[in-house]
């Protein structure tokens, strides 16, 4: 998948396109306000994307700890409510903890570095193939198998092309 543009940057470009190309052409105030609402929500998603996974994982740990401690502090002999708090705390304590997720920026940087290295490696292998090194085709095939996985994920999982390629013709 692309690291440049990131998903957040794509959303930013869409917001800018709406501002520059669409808003000035709209004929009614209602339509303009609707587009502004869309822009605001796109901005929200832009801000959420880079932190969503990391914050959710972090907060899972915080919630589980809080609930466990609350259950432990529930008064003995406190009746149904106290029993329920202890039960909630035990269930929260049973849930497996997530490992700490690297930041989105760190993952992106590593992904970009490795992608650049893989790209260069392909070029080097083709050069060696051209020089007749017998192992090159098998190694190229291994890299290509990984790339096929990557392309399959991009196309099937990420990219929407419903309606075909728009604007051509």
């Amino acid at each position, binding site marked *: 998948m*692309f*690291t*440049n*543009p990131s998903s957040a*940057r*794509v959303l930013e*470009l*869409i917001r*800018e*396109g709406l501002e*520059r*190309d669409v808003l000035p052409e709209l004929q009614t105030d209602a339509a303009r306000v609707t587009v502004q609402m869309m822009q605001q929500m796109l901005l929200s998603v832009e801000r959420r994307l880079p932190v969503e996974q990391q914050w959710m994982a972090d907060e899972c740990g915080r919630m589980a700890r809080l609930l466990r401690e609350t259950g432990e502090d529930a008064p003995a002999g406190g009746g149904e409510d106290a029993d329920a708090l202890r039960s909630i705390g035990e269930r929260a304590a049973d849930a497996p903890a997530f490992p700490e997720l690297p930041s989105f920026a760190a993952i992106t940087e590593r992904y*970009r570095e490795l*992608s*650049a290295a*893989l*790209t260069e490696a*392909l*070029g080097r292998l*083709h*050069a060696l*193939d*051209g020089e007749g090194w017998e192992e090159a085709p098998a190694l190229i*095939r*291994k*890299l*290509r*198998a*990984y*790339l*096929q*996985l990557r*392309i*399959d994920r*991009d*196309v099937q999982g*990420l*990219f929407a*092309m419903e309606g075909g*390629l*728009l*604007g*051509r*013709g």
Partner: protein
Amino acid sequence: MEAQLERFIQQQRPDAQSVRIEDFRALAGGYSQETYRCDCVIESGGSEERLPLIVRRDPPPEADILPTNRRLEFQIIRRVRERTAIPVPQAYFLDERGAALDRPAMVIERLRGSADLSPLFAPGREEEAEAVATEFCERLAELHATSLDALDPDGEMRDARGVGLDSSSWETYMTSSIDYFRENYHRIAFDPLPVFYDMYASLPNRLPEPVPLALCHGDYQPSNFLYEEGRITGVIDWENAHVGDPREDVGWLYQLSAITGFDLPGAVKAGGGFLQHYSKLSGIPVTMEDVGFFQVFSSASLASPILDAVRRGLDGESDNFLSTYMLQPLVAAQPGYTAILGYPAAEEAV
């Protein structure tokens, strides 16, 4: 723009008492030139002439996805019309520097016919589809069999994009093209794009047998012709025409036929099928292996300006949303490239 166009045509036709533009409108879509249609009514010598027109104008430079030269396009349309039987529009007027129409533009004939292939490929119209596809094959063979002395006597199409290609021989053309793809990748890759680089880097090891260079249309594919009642009425969109290996057009046609689902090569039965029929008429031998190579080569060639357009959008050099949208076809095209390059299935991945 209508008033500008009227004044421009009046300048070009000093014999006219009046020039009137009617039914002027922009044609939606298209990734390269701004395209408009209109009728032009010219009064001259007591009679009235009505010309159905297409106006193609360069977009603003920052919005140009595939920068090409209007003068060369205008010139090659004229030469193809004069020196072959391929149906192309009459090229009427050229505003080479945009003095009249703000940016370089050309005014050409609007031909009859439809570019919509969905009805042609609908069940029950197989004979008509075969006739059109066969003629499309024959027109391509005719283009490639026409001497470069006739179509490019001054050699201007030998490096039509002005990127430093050496077309003095087949070998230098192929080498300089592949070198350009690779060097250009490093200049424009806005992100590591291993499949694209794999395409470029694999080409030198797969070179086919040489053939004489010819004039290539450069985008010979299902959406670039018009047809009517089983006949082709026009081959259009010559902006990417250039001197190259004629099999580039064949590879690109196969590639785009596969992508669009309009299998023009598969519809040809004459002479044993598209490749045999084309080879017999043009004198240029083409194997399926060659087709695969030139699918990659042509894709590499056309991917370069598209990658650059995306880069310009991301770098803030262009504020055209189309530059951003070009990310979509870049990703969508990759399974086609991996198929041509013979990638193994993802299940082999370690």
